[in-house]
């Protein structure tokens, strides 16, 4: 399994979508950090480099990040189909479930890698504003961007890292959903687009208040929720992940190649 995992992580770096994401995630925070219309839209001026990660995350978590994660995770399997390497690998003495689980593990780790890079890019983009104590908030804590009073750098970085961690966690089931759809459709584009369609569908379901707390899309904003409510969120995400991974494996085990 460790050889499989090493192989799969090595393949991750070769994916076109990963390279594309690196460019997007590097450029995006810089655009926000120096956007001339920030005050007109949000009614505030950036005063600290610790506020740029919040702007990056707030503006990308609803659509851009889920899309990038879905494309990459769908490509994890889809590229094997494009290259025709899927049957070749399955002819070796590894079980189908082992092979797919290696993909699932990579897809589960990838959002954390992507968000770590996004955080670094956001912090780098905010270098102009400095990282010293500032008046206001990081935008990722309870007090938003304005109401936290004097914010020490230690507290600011803690809030930012926690929020990015939770955001990455919320993106994991989206990656696994993309894997599931790739297994179903046996191509990367189908996997990514079906995931996107499913997310849009879930967003429309907010008109049913009874199920809204359980929706996958609802968890995408968990990174701004108070720590006390995160236990429930983490449990729900774990259920989604386990379900998507299990269904993927069951389908994959019975697929003809």
């Amino acid at each position, binding site marked *: 399994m460790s050889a499989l995992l090493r192989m799969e992580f090595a393949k991750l770096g070769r994916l076109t979508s990963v390279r594309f994401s690196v460019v997007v995630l590097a450029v995006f925070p810089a655009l926000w950090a120096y956007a001339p219309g920030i005050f007109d839209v949000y009614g505030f001026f950036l005063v600290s480099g610790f506020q740029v990660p919040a702007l990056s995350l707030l503006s990308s978590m609803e659509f851009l990040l889920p899309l990038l994660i879905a494309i990459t995770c769908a490509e994890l399997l889809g590229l094997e189909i494009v290259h025709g390497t899927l049957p070749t690998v399955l*002819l070796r003495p590894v079980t189908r479930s082992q092979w797919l689980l290696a993909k699932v593990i990579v897809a589960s780790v990838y959002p954390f890698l992507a968000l770590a890079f996004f955080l670094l890019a956001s912090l780098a983009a905010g270098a102009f504003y400095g990282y010293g104590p500032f008046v206001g908030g990081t935008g990722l804590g309870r007090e938003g961007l304005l109401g936290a009073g004097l914010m020490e750098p230690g507290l600011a970085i803690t809030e930012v890292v926690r929020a990015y961690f939770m955001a990455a966690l919320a993106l994991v089931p989206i990656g696994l959903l993309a894997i599931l759809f790739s297994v179903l459709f046996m191509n990367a584009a189908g996997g990514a687009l079906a995931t996107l369609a499913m997310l849009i569908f879930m967003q429309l379901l907010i008109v049913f208040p009874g199920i809204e707390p359980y929706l996958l899309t609802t968890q995408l904003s968990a990174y701004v929720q108070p720590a006390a409510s995160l236990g429930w969120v983490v449990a729900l995400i774990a259920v989604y992940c386990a379900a998507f991974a299990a269904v993927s494996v069951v389908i994959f085990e019975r697929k003809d190649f």
Partner: protein
Amino acid sequence: MPAPAIETTSLTKRYGGRPVVQDLTFSVEPGQVYALVGPNGAGKTTVIRLVAGLAFPTSGTVRMLGSDPHEHPAIRRKLGAVVEAPAAFYPYLSGRANLRLHGRLAGGVPEERISEVLVQMELGQAAERKVGIYSLGMRQRLGVAAALLTRPEVLILDEPASGMDPLSLHLVHGVLRDAARAGTAVLLSTHHLDEVVAYCSHVGILEEGVLIDQVDLGERRARYRATVSDVHEARLALQVQPWVREVSVRGRDVVFTLEGEAAIERVAATIVGAGVSLSSLGSDVFDLRSYYRERVESQRGRGQRVDVDDEGARLGRDGVGATRVVERRPAPAVTEEEPRS
């Protein structure tokens, strides 16, 4: 008695209710090279994928070295296979890196073995180049190299000749023949009947998912034909001999298989001793191309022409034997004995 290297029993595969492979039963023993031939869409690739464990049978069983490859994936340590044409590799990796990856998946293969198979398939010079720039034939050769990597007991190849130039083809034929001599069971699918004649020991003819015929080419090489004045008397005389097998009548000819090399010398004496005139005696030339055409047409019902590859093979150019009735008569056999009056 050891289990066959490959064994299928009543193997059936349906897609959406449509049968693609029907009730297929055959086996490949160690050292045999079994070729599946058939028109496009006959089900050859499906059979290859079923046997390799990539597809699941609707009914029936597949056994590889006595085990179900789905239930016992570890048996694939003894399998080498190329199931894509051209053979599929990661294009951004070199030939050597791709083989290393295969080796890792197979549980570890020494670097020396990787170099050995690359040289064997004449890819030593191209080993460090990315597979993305390999030609079709080079990819196919790399596929065979990957299949040979673990010194498998079973080799399964789908269209190994696809995209290969004559020299590469000759190389692959030699490698597969050597593998079979070393005891490896080889199952391949092909459109090229000349490939079958070149190095296969058995051929199975598939049409619309049905195995309509199996021919033991080794046995056909031991088959002879005698043109006689009375086929029934000649048949009676021959079939009681212990060194004669499978005597049949074909027009004015008696066709039979001999046990042992020296037996041919006794045939003429036996026939003449029975009071029958012998016009000619020789190897029964087996025209695989005609045989294949006739069998497929017969399966489809007369009136449909089957296109056979122009290179269509002719088994027995060098005097090896064969059987059966074909409308188009094979080339005359080599006469070993002049007719007696």
